[in-house]
């Protein structure tokens, strides 16, 4: 298993490099100009000087390797130095965002906690809701609970988050006035009241994401439970005289979790990317929001870096899913 994991990790490195090169070349060829959003009164020579100062004068491959060196070496060390206080940050240039002129790494460090809190909680609540719903739906197949669960998850599955988000704002902010429609990132939790405010402002984005994730995962859970409930070993377990709780929660659920756990693992990076829209709607200034803003103003270093992080997450969690599969299912051996 260990050698398999290491081999897969070794293969992941060229994959991620190729992805980063493709993204870099595509951004380089894309229309748009970092000076495009500057006032029209700036003369063309000045614009050209600005481009040169941003490093756009070098050939594309030179720029790529410069970026790659900074991305893989300089920025991680700076971030580590910022987190731990160690004096390991190297001298020299960093990846600079064209819109803010501050290092991309620093911006990401500011942005990631918001995304992790909102999106992470959305995913976590989604899983916590989905698993019991899936289990009960399967155990009581075609009952009213199953029918209702199937209906709700069909809605959650088919209605996009930008629609449910707006509907939630309309109902809970505009009509009922329960929750604020905008997420205030500067809010600091100090006491009970500020905690209540934090809970209120995070409730709607988390609910939107949780609904979407829960409907997907509960479908997987239900299907997987149904597969296993009719297996012969379940009848064996009943014939052993085990309690119904043991039969369902130990025998059926553990076997049903094998595909579900891998689906959950594969879904984690798509949650980061998929939350771009939800972050926009609720004005959560997380990673997705940073990506969208960077695209608007042709801030290619920012776009490149965030895309690269997404690529790493996707490759990494695919590997984690595969390894989990091997750990959970004794029939699967990778060596």
């Amino acid at each position: 298993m260990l050698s398999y994991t290491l081999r897969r990790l070794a293969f992941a490195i060229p994959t991620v490099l190729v992805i980063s090169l493709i993204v870099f070349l595509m951004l380089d060829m894309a229309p748009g100009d970092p000076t495009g959003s500057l006032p029209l009164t700036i003369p063309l020579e000045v614009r050209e000087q600005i481009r040169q100062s941003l490093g756009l004068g070098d050939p594309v491959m030179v720029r790529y390797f410069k970026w790659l060196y900074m991305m893989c070496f300089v920025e991680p060390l700076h971030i580590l130095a910022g987190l731990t206080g160690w004096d390991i940050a190297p001298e020299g240039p960093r990846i600079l965002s064209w819109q803010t002129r501050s290092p991309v790494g620093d911006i990401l460090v500011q942005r990631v906690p918001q995304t992790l809190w909102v999106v992470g909680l959305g995913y976590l609540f989604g899983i916590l809701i989905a698993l019991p719903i899936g289990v009960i739906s399967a155990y009581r197949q075609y009952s009213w609970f199953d029918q209702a669960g199937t209906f709700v998850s069909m809605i959650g599955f088919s209605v996009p988050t930008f629609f449910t988000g707006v509907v939630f704002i309309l109902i809970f902010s505009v009509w009922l006035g329960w929750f604020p429609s905008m997420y205030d990132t500067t809010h600091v939790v100090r006491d009970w009241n500020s905690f209540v405010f934090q809970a209120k402002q995070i409730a709607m984005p988390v609910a939107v994401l949780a609904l979407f994730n829960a409907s997907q995962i509960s479908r997987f859970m239900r299907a997987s439970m149904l597969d296993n409930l009719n297996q012969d070993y379940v009848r064996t377990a009943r014939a052993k005289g085990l309690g119904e709780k043991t039969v369902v929660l130990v025998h059926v659920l553990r076997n049903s979790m094998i595909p579900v756990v891998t689906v959950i693992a594969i879904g984690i990076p798509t949650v980061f990317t998929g939350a771009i829209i939800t972050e926009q709607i609720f004005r959560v200034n997380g990673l997705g929001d940073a990506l969208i803003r960077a695209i608007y103003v042709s801030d290619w270093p920012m776009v490149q870096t965030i895309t690269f992080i997404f690529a790493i997450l996707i490759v990494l969690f695919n590997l984690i899913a595969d390894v989990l599969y091997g750990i959970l299912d004794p029939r699967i051996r990778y060596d």
Partner: protein
Amino acid sequence: MAEQRKLVEVRDLKMYFPINTGILRRHTGDVKAVDGVSFDIYEGETLGIVGESGCGKSTCGRAVLRLYDITAGTIKIDGVEIGAKGQSALRKMRPTMQMVFQDPQACLNPRMTVAAIIGEPLDEHTDWSKAKKLERIYELMDAVGLNRSFANRYPHAFSGGQRQRIGIARALALNPKFIICDEPIAALDVSIQAQVVNLLEDLQDSLGLTYMFISHDLSMVRHIADRVAVMYLGKIVELAPRDALYATPRHPYTEALLSAVPDPDPKVEARVQRIILKGDVPSPSNPPKGCNFSTRCPKVMDICRQIDPEYRELAPGHFTACHLYNDAGETGAPRYECNQQGEDA
């Protein structure tokens, strides 16, 4: 045989599976998988249940152990009526009655080791210490001829025959009195079949077990069973001591079934007169009027299509449900006469 104690008494057991159709899923009919079956099993004997695919053998076995909620009937095991008991009350009874399942590939939880599979009933029904449980697990593995060092392996690492041994060890864990073997050898190849059947017989001798042996392999049933019941479309058509059944089958279906058994001697085999039945088994959701076998019976009479024949004792211990013997009631009743009566009617 009469003085032997009845361990299992089944009376008029019915197991219907509802059919729901239409938008409102209305209950529109039933699959009558087991339709009024009665039999006894004496302590220490083996009752063979034979019949073709889909005749309700396995359903009958599972219903007797109450792995289903039965539709009607009574089941008495070791003097306790379990026909209407709730599942939680049944759980306490499970140590007495166990089952060996057909498909050794599917009936073992793929995520549990052999020791966990065999030991789980002990966790559930005893308060033994870990060491004592492990001792019992090893003892069971020895009893079924599995190497003790296999205890921590998963089921997928075993062959079909070994897996069936795990299934048997699992069934034996709590010292049951009564074991239902639901086609335990159907998924095994012939050389392994003999091993498993001999193992079952040895265990029966040493532990005094009572078996209900469900199979479609007539020669194997002849080898292991003391009495044999023949099922057709959810009913027992004939039940008799083994030798009587194989020597003088009474029911036309039994005759046809037995004539299909191949004989290893090619000279005998060449002279065998096979009774080839025409048509298919009717659907158990819509059985024919009268006798269930009337649509395919080579000796069918008018009355067979009208009235369901009674299940009666022709000779001591030899039961059958057929109109051919309705007026005779005696062993040597001339079948021919009955036929004529039927034609006259």
